[in-house]
């Protein structure tokens, strides 16, 4: 029941919002998102710490084709649900200072998006997974198209076509797997069995069909070209949804679907994929260093971070996957924080250009501290949330191949370079005409940043409870993966 509630409550709220007019919309949307978060927290209290799928619901949907409405939550799903339900209220709160035209449609789309995202993270049926996967694309497309910045029609369209191309390949892969199931069903267990029963060559086909979809979503080099433009052009909340949560659909897809379905494919082609990911880390970090636009810089840094997550997961060992899980959460929190900081700066000074800003710390030290905490989380300083995940990820990649790990490790160094340099340029130095009137933070802004900073520190100092949620499921998944490839 909890699972159904988690999926359909945001949908109901989203439809309800369409009927509401005026100022109330924001508050109702926030209330709905908070209630959703409370439901997720309740699910955690009910959750048993083992590798089994819980809160499972399996309803017949399109029976003649073996398609069921099969949803359930295990540790991996639960963390993703937690991330989604935590970030959506935060994202809604970040918009409190913005005046959007047609707000009821805006918030309604955000909640509709939340429904699709939760659906992706709890689906245990290939067809259902695909439907939610695609469904998530429509709200975000309209959010970016209707409320985005310059040249948005072309950019969001590129984004849509890119991701749809990947999705359609995945659909082909899923249909292919479906044909190989014994009883013609999309049930996850049957798809696992069908994939694992194939030889390496055919698993390779499945691997590429599905990997393309995930790689484009994350995005992994060289499928990333839609990302910087889209992140830069989208409205802040759209960027947050894309980078904070939607990107994790790709990494989650690798863990939930790719590793178990095509273990031999991963074993054979994984090295190529990991090399692509690591290339992306170095490439995106280098480009980030020379960016003038702060929002764009963070977009590139996101490619670097997600490259490391993908490399760690594809390494297929316990540290890698566990690190990936943790880093997915941390990156979600940090990147939302960073994009919010960009938004705060832009709304006050009217620019995002790093070079023309400066000395904000002198005017607003409170903001400087909060920014610093988010930034340190993002560069993975020990005792922040970023450190735990990045350490495990590098460890996982190192076990896979030391040389690749050496290159992947550059992400930490380069990340520190571009983040600290931009902090220095924006916050420190002489206050100029642009920044001298930097207004104090409003209540809603302060609330958001303090919540995020608290999450960064608490989770950095005391990561164990969250690690424990996913640990049994991850262990089980990695063990079956290792068994399949050594067989």
């Amino acid at each position, binding site marked *: 029941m909890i699972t159904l509630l988690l999926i359909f409550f945001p949908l109901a709220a989203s439809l309800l919002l369409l009927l509401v007019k005026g100022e109330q919309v924001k508050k109702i949307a926030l209330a709905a998102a908070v209630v959703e978060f409370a439901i997720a927290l309740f699910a955690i209290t009910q959750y048993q710490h083992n590798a089994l799928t819980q809160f499972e619901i399996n309803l017949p*949907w*399109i*029976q*003649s*084709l073996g398609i069921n409405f099969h949803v359930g939550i295990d540790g991996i799903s639960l963390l993703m649900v937690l991330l989604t339900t935590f970030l959506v209220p935060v994202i809604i709160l970040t918009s409190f200072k913005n005046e959007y035209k047609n707000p009821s449609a805006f918030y309604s789309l955000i909640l509709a998006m939340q429904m699709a995202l939760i659906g992706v993270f709890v689906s245990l049926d290939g*067809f259902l997974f*695909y*439907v939610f996967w*695609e*469904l998530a*694309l*429509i709200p975000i497309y*309209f959010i970016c*198209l*209707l409320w985005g910045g310059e040249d*948005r*029609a072309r950019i969001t*369209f590129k984004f*849509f*076509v890119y991701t*749809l*191309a990947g999705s*359609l*390949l995945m*659909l*082909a892969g899923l*249909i*292919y797997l*479906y*044909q190989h199931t014994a009883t013609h069903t999309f049930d996850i267990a049957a798809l696992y069995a069908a994939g694992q029963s194939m030889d390496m060559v055919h698993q390779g086909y499945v691997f590429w069909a599905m990997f393309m979809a995930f790689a484009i979503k994350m995005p992994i080099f060289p499928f990333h070209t839609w990302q910087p433009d889209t992140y830069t052009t989208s409205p802040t909340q759209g960027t947050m949804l894309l980078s904070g949560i939607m990107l994790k659909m790709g990494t989650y897809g690798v863990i939930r679907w790719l590793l178990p379905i095509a273990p031999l494919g991963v074993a054979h082609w994984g090295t190529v994929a990991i090399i692509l990911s690591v290339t992306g880390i170095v490439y995106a970090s280098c480009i980030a260093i020379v960016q003038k636009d702060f929002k764009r810089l963070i977009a590139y840094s996101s490619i670097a971070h997600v490259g490391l997550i993908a490399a760690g997961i594809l390494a297929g060992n316990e540290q890698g996957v566990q690190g990936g899980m943790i880093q997915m959460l941390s990156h979600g929190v940090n990147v939302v924080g960073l994009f919010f900081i960009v938004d705060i700066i832009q709304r006050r000074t009217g620019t995002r250009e790093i070079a023309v800003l400066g000395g904000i710390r002198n005017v607003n030290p409170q903001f400087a501290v909060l920014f610093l905490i988010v930034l340190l989380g993002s560069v993975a300083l020990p005792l922040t949330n970023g450190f735990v995940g990045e350490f495990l990820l590098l460890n996982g990649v190192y076990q896979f191949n030391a040389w690749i790990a050496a290159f992947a490790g550059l992400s930490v160094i380069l990340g520190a370079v571009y983040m600290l340099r931009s902090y220095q340029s924006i916050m420190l130095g002489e206050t100029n005409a642009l920044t001298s009137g930097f207004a104090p933070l409003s209540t809603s802004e302060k609330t958001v940043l303090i919540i995020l900073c608290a999450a960064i520190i608490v989770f950095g100092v005391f990561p164990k409870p969250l690690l424990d949620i996913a640990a049994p499921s991850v262990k089980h998944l990695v063990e079956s993966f290792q068994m399949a490839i050594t067989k």
Partner: protein
Amino acid sequence: MTALILLSSLGVIALLAEIFSFKKLLYPVVLLGLITTFILNLVDWNTDHLYFGMMRYDNFAVAFSSVLIGITFLWFIMSEGFFKEETSLTDHFALILFALAGGVIMVSYTNMTMLFLGIEILSIPMYVLAGSKKEDVASNEAGFKYLIMGAFATGFLLFGITLIYGSTASFDLPTIADFVASHQGTIPTMFYVGVLLMMVGLGFKVSAVPFHFWAPDVYQGAPTPVTAFMATVVKTAAFAAFLRLFAGTFAGVGGIWTEVLCVMAALTLLTGNITAVLQSSAKRMLAYSSIAHAGYMLLALIALNQFSQSSILFYTLAYSIGSIASFGVLSAVATARGNDAVDSFNGLAKSNPLLAFAMTVAVLSLAGIPPTAGFFAKYYIFTAAFQAGYGWLVLIAILASLIGVYYYFRIIIAMYFKQGSEEKIEISFNHKLLFVITILLTIALGVMPEYIIRLL
């Protein structure tokens, strides 16, 4: 059979309206008549009647007749304006109803002569209707072109029927199927030639590449309601006829024609979608998209398995609903803003949110994005083709759908992003109702396709 009798009578009543001057009443009478026909048609479900060896009312026939009648009903609501002109009003009613009767014959024939009659009964009214804007050169051209090309196609079809009759001495479909089954290996070449000629003839009717050249001009030139009728009812009937003949009777010689049809399907998918991208007129774009959709449906025909019938049924339904909605919006926009270019959709989301939303749902469905009916329709057809081992065709179809997104989204971008006329387009209550119905149907079919696909 009930449906056929009722529809023909309705057509005659429409003609009598001119004489007994109850023209004003005709519109509601026809709508009521269609509802009655729809319901009485369902009574034939599971009865499987054979009428004089000519027509067979099996579930296939009933299901497709229901789709045809249902879509025509929606079409009548959409084309309200078409029946407001003073001149030749009753002709419009009668021609459409007779065309629909022809369509019903095309989905229920079991004899080659009935197939031929059905196609002609459907086509002749369409020739007239395509040219029904007498003052408009484009409309005249459309009518003329359609007639010439249609006659050509009929020639091929008749030639094919003759050759098949020559080798089997029968017009009766079961007899021909028996002949194929009992003469494996000794079937005369003449028979194969006949099959291929019939395929050409039907290929014209469903506008499959390379027999599609008539379609864009005819679709663009004809009055928009007539175009909508051609794109939905005519296409559905033609595909049902194609399916009944080839998947039923000629399945035994599938090896001969599926290969040819594979090439045709691939060409249709690519040509239709790629050419649609280049159009600036929305109407012409929808014409090419209609060609492209024929390509997807051909996949199901080629698959020749247990999914073929139900997937085409679902596809025609999803596609027709999407087309009715998109042509309905197009017609409203083109009338109010004076032309049917994609640019005339600019700013529609501001001036008419309902129209824009209905159009969005319709094109999302046509493009095949979940959770709309169009997505499941495509998915189902892909599954059918995959199952039959045509993975490469599915890949082409996937590529084609991606291209499809490109031009469908041009309309969405125009409506939601571009600045345009702020002036609100007045739409009648009936039209509002129609759009709400199409939106609901599109989503309901997409979320609960089971009810349709297990019919056949």
